[in-house]
């Protein structure tokens, strides 16, 4: 490793402490366990929201600690959030429309041409 010429001047970019990384890892594994366990309990449509909730928590943990969003320039976090926003926009309006015209597809399935 070619260390920088000058002395031990601290490099930039935040070094995530080892403890935090391991803690986050443990949390992720536990959450995976929970989400798998949740499928044995039948709560109807709530299951989807629970699964998505847990996945969202895991995703935020990865993003904040593994991907340094917590320590970096906030603009990077903004980029990430904007990406998710446009994802939901695309899904939302498309879902709205496809759900509206679904009966017309069902009619064609029942008595095809």
């Amino acid at each position: 490793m070619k260390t920088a010429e000058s002395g031990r001047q601290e490099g930039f970019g935040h070094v995530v402490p080892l403890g935090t990384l391991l803690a986050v890892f443990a949390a992720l594994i536990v959450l995976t366990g929970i989400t798998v366990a949740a499928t044995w309990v039948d709560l109807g449509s709530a299951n989807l929201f629970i699964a998505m909730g847990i996945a969202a928590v895991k995703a935020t943990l990865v993003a904040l600690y593994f991907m340094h969003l917590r320590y970096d320039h906030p603009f990077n976090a903004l980029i990430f959030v904007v990406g998710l926003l446009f994802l939901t926009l695309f899904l939302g309006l498309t879902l709205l429309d496809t759900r509206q015209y679904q009966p017309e597809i069902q009619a064609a399935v029942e008595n095809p041409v």
Partner: protein
Amino acid sequence: MNDLTALAPHGVSAQSEQGHHPHPDYVAHHFDSAEQQFDAGKLGVWVFLVTEILFFSGLFCAYAVYRGNHPEVFVYAHHFLDKNLGALNTAVLIFSSLTMALAVRAAQLEQRRALIAFLLVTLLCAFVFLGVKYVEYRQKWEHGLLWAGRYHATGQESNHGPEAASADRGAAVAAGPRAGETTPAVPPELPPEATASEDAPRLVGVFFSIYFAMTGLHALHVIGGIGAVTWILARAVRGDFNRFYFGPVDYVGLYWHLVDLVWIFLFPLLYLIH
């Protein structure tokens, strides 16, 4: 993936360190300082990650549309997916995310051997992940649980193909290792109710289309990740990184975490349907 920083040697660094050589060779000529170069690269990678998110958004949208409008298909079809392999894969990927994060940390602290070790473990995890995926795909291939055009599940003789035409086409075209359709090899670990319902819903082929599209594209990204990590490993061995220049390790790390992030959502959506 794409090495975002240029390493042309010369150029004037405004906030130059006192060293005799003001502009170290790892800072590109058009950047003023290593930190500016690092921040620019980080910004570029985050923008690239957004394009990846929106690239997968198409498949998430197809998933949402077909699950929203045909929930029974997803409930029926997900029985064919093996939850345990899925969970194992999730754990493998999360672990590889940890080792990647540790690798980035090692690069920042100029611990070269640790960096190389963590990168190797990450690669290993990636190959394990692909191995598990191969097992799953092979299992589906054997039972004909393929995408809509090729769907012809064995073990259920009912006309589960959306239309006779596609089923014939599926049968006629289903080359691949299996002999005829005679062996009703219903996957052993299927819960009883999965085989009980004889008439699979009309769109079950579309579920597998979405399943293969999502997991296939994700697997391609894992392979891409393997390529990138190997490139970083090679440069680490060559000793390119130091505490002022560890950008590439961080960027490949970010890309790898995103691939893990996508799987964190894929796993419950495909495997844990209730």
